């Protein structure tokens, strides 16, 4: 296992390097000038030339890429990689922008995952206890709805009901734990549905397997068989789902963040590209790739920890 982790970490810079080159190429060839303002004012050519110089963008993508990587390697005073300035927000450092919004997204994402795990496991287990029963069918219905409804619809409904009609919860913002509830539920409902179906299927499968039947025949109670033995195995597919789900949920959702006015990472993904903000695009992509690689590694390690049959 240690060897596996070592190898994975060794591959890591290579993967990041490839992602960097591909992203830089794409960001560079995509049409549109980052220095253009949206209100249609042309900037005098001599001033634009001066701006390009300021950002090391006057000598082509290779020169820019190298100076960018230099900055990343040198790092800021506080030891973070320096992703340079933002082109859209002239006075922001990309590292501060990501540093400010990543924790928000991680917090929101982990809350959403907790919601997903909670609802998913609960309805999955109940469904498995009484397959075909009322609860099973209704949980299937909810799961279907959760998967098929896009989260701007779920979010708008939740907003209209809990913030609009009942005024129980704040409509948006990022000010107190109460502000996290609606977006976390919105974001968590789709993965909850997946988890419910995974748990439900897995449990039904295992409960009717030979070893559980043998254990039951020997006098093991149904509850004990379910919670102590079957759930553990049934949870494996959930775990492999959790890796990418965690990465995607924690790096922010543009729609949910916009709807609930949350200053997370999602907006950077979309706006950096719309603004052609090369520094931000690269910073965001590098951060996201790092997280994705790390989460996948974590899931593989967790796999081995839960199921000793798996060797790494």
């Amino acid at each position, binding site marked *: 296992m240690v060897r596996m982790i070592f190898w994975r970490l060794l591959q890591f810079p290579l993967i990041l390097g490839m992602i960097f080159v591909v992203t830089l190429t794409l960001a560079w060839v995509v049409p549109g000038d980052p220095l*253009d303002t949206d209100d*249609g004012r042309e900037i005098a050519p001599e001033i634009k030339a001066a701006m390009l*110089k*300021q950002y090391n963008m006057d000598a082509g993508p290779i020169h820019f890429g190298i100076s960018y990587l230099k900055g990343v390697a040198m790092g800021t005073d506080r030891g973070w990689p320096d992703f340079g300035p933002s082109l859209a*927000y002239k006075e*922001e450092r990309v590292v501060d922008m990501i540093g400010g919004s990543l924790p*928000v997204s991680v917090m929101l994402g982990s809350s959403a995952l907790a919601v997903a795990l909670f609802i998913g496991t609960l309805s999955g287990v109940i469904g498995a206890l009484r397959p075909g029963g009322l609860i099973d069918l209704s949980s299937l219905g909810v799961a279907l709805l959760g998967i098929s409804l896009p989260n701007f619809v779920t979010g708008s409904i939740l907003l209209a009901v809990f913030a609009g009609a009942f005024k129980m919860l704040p409509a948006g913002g990022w000010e107190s734990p109460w502000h996290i509830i609606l977006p976390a539920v919105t974001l968590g409902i789709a993965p909850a549905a997946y988890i419910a179906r995974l748990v439900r299927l897995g449990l039904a499968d295992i409960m009717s397997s030979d070893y559980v039947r043998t254990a039951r025949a020997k006098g093991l109670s149904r509850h004990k068989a379910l919670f102590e033995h079957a759930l*553990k195995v049934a949870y494996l597919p959930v775990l492999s789902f959790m890796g990418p789900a965690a990465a995607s949920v924690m790096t922010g959702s543009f729609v949910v963040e916009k709807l609930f006015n949350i200053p997370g990472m999602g907006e950077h993904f979309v706006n950096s590209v719309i603004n052609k903000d090369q520094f931000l695009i690269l910073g965001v992509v590098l951060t996201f790739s790092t997280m994705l690689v790390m989460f996948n590694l974590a899931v593989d390690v967790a796999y081995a920890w839960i199921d000793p049959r798996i060797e790494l």
Partner: protein
Amino acid sequence: MFKRIVVVILVVFSLPFIIGVGDPMPKADFVYVEVAEYNSRDPQRMTYLADIRLARRLFETLVDLDFNDLSRNPGAAERWEVSEDGRTYTFHIREDAYWSNGDRLTSHDFIYAWRRAVLPDTAAGYALFLFAIEGAQDFYAFREAQLAAYIERAKVEGGSEEAAKGLWVEALEKFDEMVGVRAVDDKTLEVTIKQRTEYFLDLVAFATYMPVHAASVEAGVTYSAESGRRLDDPTYWNDPKRLIGNGPYVLSKRKFRQYSYLTANPHYWNRDSLKNQSVLARIIGDDMAMLMAYDQGVVDYVPLISVEMAHDLVVQERDDVHVFPLAGTYIYNFNCQQKLNNGEPNPLADWRVRRALCTAIDRKQLGEMVTRMNEPPAYSFVPPGSCAGYEPPVDVAPRFDPEAARALLSEAGYADGSKITGLSILYNTGSGHDRVAQAVKKMWEEHLGVVVTLDGVESKISSQRSRSQDYTIRRAGWYGDYADPTSWLDIRSSKDENNTTKWSNPEYDALLAEAAGTEAPDERMRLLREAEAIMLKECPQAVLYHYVGVSLYDPKRVKGLKLNAWTRDRFEQVSVIDQGGNE
């Protein structure tokens, strides 16, 4: 296993309560919405209107332009004199004008700021506004050449910070020698401009001319050994601890993409006139979220509602929905070059074709049926009433008349409109531009038989293609920067960067030049009017309508807010009555 899962879930659920989520917004006397985070708080580098509005809260210019009546009032300067030839301005800065840290505001702060604006090192988007000053443009060119030479030298000998600093000392001397600004004493500033400029005081009232606190800005300056350039510390402008201003408010707190919190500047000379002690800008990008925040009473004022939402609100006839005209015009630019980029002959090169297209647009229908905001149909480029003393020649502009349009088209050799091919409308998607383009396309097909295609792209792609004339017809809009017709008319002069239509008319250029050198205001306006008439006749662009704005506030609660066509509100005059009836 089950227990473990339960524990993990419980821990995660309680995390937000243990660590805390964000922090509560500061409480403010007056809360308004911005749809996006400010792009810049540096007065010399800013280009966005939202930033320019904010700048006026944090900094004060010498002359203060009241956008409600377009009067020029004393700002940081209590008075000024203009020389006989109209080229020398002497500003007398108030004795009681101070920076927010208590330092005296001096003429040197202005010179420092203006020098920043005309340095290629700063790359100020509106540097051109400073080029009205004698020698400013030459100084810009000098510094550019100096830096270019330095880079060449540095390649051979290697550069150093010391050498870059030496370069700067030389540039400083050159600035004093070349540029027409002089500190007569600490409180007197003398400015010499290139030629008499009727609206120079309006420029002085613009953000690029705002002073900055020289000592604290200078503290963050470094020199690049590689390029020889002076580098500002951009984070200074974002840092409430460091940013020093001379305006009615100071930046007290801010959180990126969440809020900017301004409190009254205790050292502002006119602090007693402030009707509130704090202003909070909440950044809410989503229309739904914005309206909900307004309905919940979290915000007092929504300055501009997006076109998508505006109509639904306006039809409700609520007395907190305010519709007002804006000093901007919605236009379709025509590519006026003889040949298109692909080498094909350009039918739009003939002004009669352009005018025929303009004549076939039913502008009233656009406002009533398409945008549904009843925008005033445009018969001029300069919106009527936006500049004091100027009446645009609306009688020259094409009006909707299908028959006349067809006649004009056949005069140009296209008796059959469908012979005109290869035209397309380039527009940036969203904000209702799609619908307008569809409507105009249909009008042209119906009335002229001219078939155009629709080409919706992202805004930045549209700008890029406009600059390289990679279009035939392109949607655009133009708002004035200052209240003078030249703020619109200049962009159609042959040499202007913004003239992406490449329309060129020597007579038009000559009239603008003549107007620039004309002393008598009436005569000057007459010449400008004549110039605009030429433009309206030849139609380098179709003028569709003048913009309107829709804002949201309860006039019974929010007092002192004056909406104007230039959207420059004065928040220091606003008071909000709370539910209990107290101010």
